[in-house]
């Protein structure tokens, strides 16, 4: 069940963190907080079903997405910066 919750919460985490990271942008803060609240609803739903057991898969899903996002940001930049994509062109 925890694994299923984890897999379900992976896309929900992407959706939620998209709003959380928007706090670094120039949009209206109150609107962004409202969006975070709405996007937290899948987590609330899983918590209502699983109770305490939802904590681990929820935290794991959020951590997975955050780690993947940060790692990908750095990695993709490094690849482009080193010119690995178009080594020899006319």
């Amino acid at each position, binding site marked *: 069940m925890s694994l299923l919750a984890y897999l379900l919460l*992976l*896309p929900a985490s*992407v*959706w939620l*963190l*998209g*709003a959380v*990271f*928007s706090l*670094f*942008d*120039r*949009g209206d803060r109150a609107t962004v907080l409202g969006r975070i609240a709405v996007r937290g609803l899948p987590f609330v739903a899983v918590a209502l079903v699983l109770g305490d057991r939802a904590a681990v898969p929820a935290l794991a899903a959020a951590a*997975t*997405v955050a780690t*993947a*996002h*940060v790692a*990908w*940001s*750095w990695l*993709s*930049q*490094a690849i*482009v*910066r080193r*010119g690995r*994509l*178009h080594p020899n*062109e*006319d």
Partner: protein
Amino acid sequence: MNPWVVNLRDAAAGDAALTGGKAARLSRLARAGMTVPDAFVVTSAAFTAHFPAVSEVPAQAPELQPMLRQAIGAALLAQFPDNPYLVVRSSALAEDSAGASFAGQHESYYYVAPDDVPDKVVDCWLSLWSAPARHYRAARARDGAGRGVDPDPCGELAMAVIVQRMVQAERSGVCFTCDPTGRYPDHAWIEAAWGLGAALVDGRVSPDRLLLERGGTLVRREIGRKRQKVAATLSDPGDLRLEPVPLLQQTASVLSERDAADVLDKSLEAEALFGGPQDVEWAYQGQVLYLLQSRPITTKGPPRSRTPGADPAGRGPAGRWVLFKPLAENFTEPLTPMSVDLFRRVLPPIGRFIDGHYYLNLDLAARLLPLRWRADELVKVLLLREEPAALQLSPWRLPLALLGLAGLYLLDGVSWHRSARVTRADLQDYATLCRKLLAGRDEVPAVLHRLVVGSGHPFEPIGRRAYYLNVSAGRYFLLLGALGRLTARYAPGLDPQLVQSLCSGDGNTSSRHLVEGIRALAAIARGDAMLGEALAAGDPTALAAVLDELPPDHRFARALDAFLQRFGHRCSKEMELSTPRWREDPLPLLLMVRSYLRSPPGPPPDTHADYLLARNRIREALPRRWQQRLADYLIERIRYYVSLREDTRHYHTMAMDVVRTRLLGVEQKLLATRRLRVPGDLFYLTWDEVRDLEQARLGWHDVSARIRTRRQAHRRIAREGAPETIGVTPADAENVGATNGVDNLTGQCASPGTAEGRARIVLDPALAHDLEPGDILVAPYTDPGWTPLFPLVDAVIVELGSFLSHAGTVAREYGIPCVVDVADCTRTLKEGQRIRVFASAGRIEVCEP
């Protein structure tokens, strides 16, 4: 007869084995009575005597034998007793043959004093082993061997040298006695520029281009912006003789209709003499027309598709490639090598640059997409020409594709969601970043990388991440498809054009502000008699003088300054780094102000009212409440993303401005240290070469030949146009968007509506002087630099583009019909011809021949 030096008018000079292809042909022209400058030829026999082993690169320049030195001296004395400037030109034995032109591969020297002729003869000989010439010979040999025709098309390796009186040309150019691209049978092209022809042949100027029937009738005239010329007199012996063309002359026509007919007449005489189509170099000194060279036309091929290796030099990548429309529609000319080198570092690996144009990798796309489309179907979809009839999913590739999508969502989904609601304040961050990088010390590729891809820091504000903003804005196309399917399913009676009419911006886009800014400048000029007269008179020199004399606190000066502060980074062809921005060269902008002054456009349309009307009609047509709410959401998002697309373009072109400014800074240093000699040459180098110049690992003599070869190649590719596909020729690709008879042209609807008016063919927005209401703009492409022309016309027809194009977005915003992807419309339609545009059907009808 001296075997080493012969007069050009002697019969012996017509022997190509002795004097080389160029000299032999010139000799035939001279002996046929045509006006050819006086000359003598140092024959290939002299070359052979000095270079017994030609297969190896000589270790050092040979000492000229006394007999040859004496013969040259005697010829100089006999033919040029008045001590004029001379031209010393190479004439290799294989040069100007039907198999290989060797255009620009060997050296020629201008403004040579008679005393320097012997040294320049040796320099010409040595250019036979220059890197470009060796590369050219190797490519020709490879090409010939690959096709099994002639393994050595370059013939014997030897060179004669022509020593010729220099024509002090005020006007010069090239005449092609038939269209080298094959598009216009029975027509000839003339290219013309100010000053000597070297600037044109080396690709340093955008010449006037005249299309004539072979009978001599002028069919069309394309005026180029001729910013510089090679002076007829030598002011600075150490310089390259390039000088700026006065403002008034830059956009003036070089040849009258009568002069053009004379040039064609003489060129056709040369064609008759040699028995085939010719590429003739000509020059006017006063009213005397000289022929300087005549060579057979060697390049000819259809532009719409190409097979790999079909390039005359044997180049071309393997694989299958399709022109990337979203980039291609911004310009028809190829990017310069510097732009290609920098952009390739930041573009995703889904394609590559070929001859200055970006192509998608068709094989990669076929592998990535979980579909069972044939190559020709995929080509049409990638060219944004039509939707496929059915998706035809591939069952074994679908799970892999879905898995890949899920992985991509996991890695990049956070940024994807974050970029869904970018505010205009977010975009201001981009301007801030540009200012910071402009003042910084980062290397140019790093600056472009930072401005296009971002820093890679996950907390970086989304407004600074151009890549995501562009992807984000493109979402409107998906949402538009969703809205179309919703209405088609639940409101089948609804006019599909109604959905398309929603795809205009919110009326507050940067394009709209730009047009309003020009309108305001025209209004101020109208209120100032002297300024209004200078603008309306159409004399750029007088206009520049009036502007210079304006006090800084003059209303127009202040308004222009404010406009340039905001829009000074814009221009036409703004993706090309070598293009001057309006801030550097405001003449194109002022010419647009003049157009507004002459024919004030009507007030901006109230597209908001149209939008509300369309939205309400869609809502009323949908029966269920959830459908209405979904339609409302989609419509709101579509409008938002369309506006974002226009606005991001405004901000992201700042990146091009920053990179250009930094490049110009580097160029200034290289010019000051004489490692570069001509402004603008830097754009024909790669960044690594520029760095080598900066660090003195390369010098001017190492790069000058490369620059010239690349300029010539750039000019050739620009003239021939880019093929839409390489390595794949879909069965019906030739027919898509093509002319349907002489009376009808077809394309894609980008903005619905109907209009009738005069066709006004505009190839450069800066030269569109006299557009009037009732005109229909016919253009090869449009980018934001063209936006100010839209309110002046009743409809727009564009050669390139798709529904996603800038042309369509702006036309929808101004409520004018627009048809895009109309192949060859700038060539098929005639200036002033009356035409009718049925944009909704994507059809153009010619009302009068």
